[in-house]
């Protein structure tokens, strides 16, 4: 048990917490609090629309191809669980259902083949 060994130091953690708190508040306050009713340029809005849908897949794709639990060795079990999660997420558009499917399939595959 216990993965309570931290792989980063506490000062880094607090810099990240404070930095993210200020940064994400600033993002939220930027328009409602400061800019008022001025419109943002179209090209900027057009790019902002795709930030989350670009960054999250870019973060997750390497984690699926080189999973951490195997030390980065490609693994069919993890790939299958990931593919199933994604398929359920796309077709059901239900985050919770996809997460539960993914976790259950990961655990059954680990039990059967791990």
């Amino acid at each position, binding site marked *: *048990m216990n993965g309570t060994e931290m792989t980063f130091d506490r000062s880094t953690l607090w810099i990240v917490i404070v930095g993210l708190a200020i940064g994400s508040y600033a993002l939220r306050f930027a328009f409602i609090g400061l800019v008022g009713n001025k419109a943002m340029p179209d090209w900027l809005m057009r790019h902002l629309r795709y930030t*989350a849908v*670009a960054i999250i897949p870019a973060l997750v794709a390497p984690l699926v191809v080189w999973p951490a639990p195997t030390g980065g060795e490609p693994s069919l079990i993890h790939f299958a669980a990931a593919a199933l999660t994604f398929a359920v997420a796309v077709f059901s558009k239900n985050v*919770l259902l996809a997460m539960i499917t993914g976790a259950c399939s990961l655990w059954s595959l680990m039990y059967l083949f791990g």
Partner: protein
Amino acid sequence: MTISTVKSAFWKGMRDSAPFVLVSGPFGLLFGVLAAEAGLNVLEATSFSLAVFAGSAQFTALQLMQEQTPTLIVLVSALAVNLRVAMYSASLTPYLGGAPLWQRACAAYLTVDQAYALSMIEFERRADWGVSERMAYFFGTNGLVAPAWMAATITGALVGASIPDSLGLDFVLPIAFLAMIGPMLRTPAHVVACFTACAVSLPAALMPYNLGLIIAGLAGMMAGAQAELWFERRTARTEEAEG
């Protein structure tokens, strides 16, 4: 604008947001558990949720810190994941911009997915509402969800450290991210952005300091923006041909 309509707007917001507790509860729980697994104590995990109050950004930061990513890249990536709230802020301004500054300052902190989505639907429907009713509704949509998110984080952080490693929790975060992508693929342009970012992220993973994440993210954003223009032009052409 009587007190009673303001009150009822608040309660309506709270009622409308109730189903979202089923989403934010498990997410907060998962964040608490994974934070505990990563070595954060209950105070640190709770401060994280309370101060940042943005699930996907918190998960991103947690993952990247465990990969020994330089702090600046952790911050840039997590904020990029959360850039959408700047858009929420911009599109709420016409409805809430007239409220007093202290209310707008509180509303800014509470600008999260479900509050934004519910409010935009309701504000467009209720033309009779003034700014106080709108603000009350907006706060109402957070009345259940925000406390549930905090309570779930604390619970997760408390039980997290006693969950055995053999459960493979280090792969639960990728699964949570994959589940979040599904509902984001609303248009063909979103699909283009998603798959471009994936394709670039794999070779870019060789870059030091997780810089590849930023490069792949930018590539995905540009691809999405270009795809949007392309699909718009195509629609316009089809309409012209038909009209």
